């Protein structure tokens, strides 16, 4: 729920040294976890350290992580979008419909991106224009967008995508590096620069920490939030293109439940669910950890639903542990 953290913030007398900050940071911990997962997987299965297997494993997280980057910015600004998976369904359905009309590959891509943008604009207009809470709005649009896919498709499926369209989900840029992996890396850099090196990024943090304060310091809060919803819609459209191209077919149940996995990934990446803090490198590392864990479990024949227990527990533990830790360390100091 979008509760603003109203409690008094503690401001230290002096900042800790850069080395202390680096070793104590969430990202360093994640990197350690990623390395550990990598080693455990290598020990557990002889098939893990194969370049092509590893390349296949990246498909576990690339599409979700693309949405995760935009979601990270949205959550930092104090909003959330639970409709992302439904936007994928709607964009994919629109592309399938466009195929029936005889669109070529570039027009298909444009269709996917456009549907993503329109859905994002719809969410953004409801949240910033009417001032509605984003969590309920996007629970509503989550049903609405996927509902439209169900109306169009029912129990049918769209197939017959042109062969050149397959490149986005199945093509390789060089050796084992897939187009999706390259796109993931490029988007990671773009979003990292956007969040950490531009005025826009600073505005996002400012809004998440104190929307009223941000407004009074001249930030157009509504406009920034609207752009973030647009961006999330656009990234969902891009993910829809990759996923549809990879699967080669569209059903209304496509990407079902992904909103949960994307939010889990973002929170695991150290983005504060109440807004105001977090980094893109954290999200990248969280994506890799989740992808590697899923792949490792898969190699060990662990059923998918058991993995979801692990992911659910991870989500709670990731937020609970720092709180317990803070309580213990506070207790010893007092």
């Amino acid at each position: 729920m979008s509760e603003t953290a109203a409690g008094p913030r503690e401001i230290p007398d002096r900042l800790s040294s850069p080395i202390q900050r680096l070793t104590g940071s969430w990202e360093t911990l994640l990197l350690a976890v990623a390395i550990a997962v990598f080693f455990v997987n290598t020990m557990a299965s002889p098939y893990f350290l194969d370049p092509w297997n590893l390349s296949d494993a990246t498909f576990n997280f690339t599409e979700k992580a693309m949405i995760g980057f935009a979601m990270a910015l949205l959550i930092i600004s104090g909003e959330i979008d639970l409709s992302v998976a439904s936007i994928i369904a709607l964009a994919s359905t629109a592309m399938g419909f466009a195929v029936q009309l005889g669109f070529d590959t570039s027009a298909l891509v444009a269709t996917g991106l456009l549907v993503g943008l329109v859905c994002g604009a719809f969410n953004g207009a409801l949240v910033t224009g009417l001032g509605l809470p984003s969590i309920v709005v996007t629970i509503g649009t989550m049903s609405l967008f996927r509902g439209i896919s169900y109306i169009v498709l029912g129990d049918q499926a769209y197939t017959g995508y042109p062969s050149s369209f397959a490149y986005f989900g199945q093509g390789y840029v060089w050796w084992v590096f897939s187009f999706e992996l390259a796109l993931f890396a490029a988007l990671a850099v773009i979003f990292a620069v956007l969040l950490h090196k531009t005025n826009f990024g600073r505005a996002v943090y400012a809004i998440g920490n104190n929307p009223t304060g941000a407004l009074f310091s001249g930030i157009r809060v509504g406009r920034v939030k609207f752009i973030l919803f647009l961006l999330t819609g656009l990234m969902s459209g891009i993910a829809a293109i990759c996923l549809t191209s990879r699967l080669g077919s569209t059903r209304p149940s496509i990407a079902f439940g992904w909103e949960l996995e994307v939010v889990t990934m973002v929170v695991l990446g150290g983005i504060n669910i109440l807004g105001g803090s977090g980094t893109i490198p954290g999200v990248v590392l969280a994506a890799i950890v989740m992808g590697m864990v899923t792949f490792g479990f898969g190699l060990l024949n662990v059923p998918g639903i058991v993995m979801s227990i692990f992911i659910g527990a991870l989500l709670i533990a990731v937020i609970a542990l720092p709180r317990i830790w803070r309580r213990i360390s506070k207790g010893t100091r007092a």
Partner: protein
Amino acid sequence: MIQNAVKSREAILALAILAMTGLIATRFPGFIRPANLANVFNDTAPLIILALGQMVVILTRCIDLSVAANLALTGMIVATINTVAPDIPIGLIIAIAISLGALLGAFNGILVWKLDIPPIVVTLGTMTIYRGIIFLVSEGQWINAHEMSEPFKHFPRATIAGLPVLSWIAILCITLFAVIVARTPLGRAFFAVGGNPNAAVYTGIDVGFTRFMAYVFAGALSGLTGYLWVARYAVAYVDIAGGFELEVVAACVIGGVSIAGGIGSVAGAVLGALFLGVVKNALPVINISPFWQLAISGSAIIIAIAFNARAQRQKGRVILKTAEHAT
């Protein structure tokens, strides 16, 4: 002022349901036969029961997305108990279902109360964990009708005075919650905590504990519904009631329960559930594909919150500083 708005909103919703039923009746008079209306009510009973629990949780500014998973897990466990020991009386089965559900709800509540984790994160997490546990309990197997004992399956369908027991249980829950919410200190605390947590602390209400109790209530009702669901449909498997948590939230939102907390009523939640129930049962009658249902409930949620937001525009002035114990 606000009281009036709430009252009129429920009146509007009731009128909308009546108008919709009337409109269908002009084309298909069979729809408003008492037997059919009783059927619609019975079909909506699980949604009504869950909406009551969700309402108190939302009143305290929280949300519970794990109700459907809780329902499915409790249903699977009581069904398993029934196959192992068919002689256990129904009363005991129901008691087990309610306490098990309450326990799962309490787990959510503890995390929200003691660790201050945002409710949406807690219940998103427990939603997947509870679903996963069903798989571990059942090993992915279904429990089918022939494995359940006759009294176990028969109970919710037995009719008393013309209505099935399932409907009577829903009516009992509605009455019980109407009393709890309006006539007990805890019921008033739900409103106080949601309306203004800081003020609630100053009036001596334990905010965390009140939220915890709301989760226990929601959990207990999910557990009860778990047994009723499994017994009524005579089947238990991992995915029963999948996605139902959103329908429950939708029922509350349509019924005028404010997601920002502190505003809502038992009548609203029940009417919201009935609205969705009537839509769901009317679609096949008026020959519209059931695939429309998801989009219709999505639109209903969006329209309902847009309405609710108008009513909440006038806010009070903050006269108390943030209390330390409130979040």
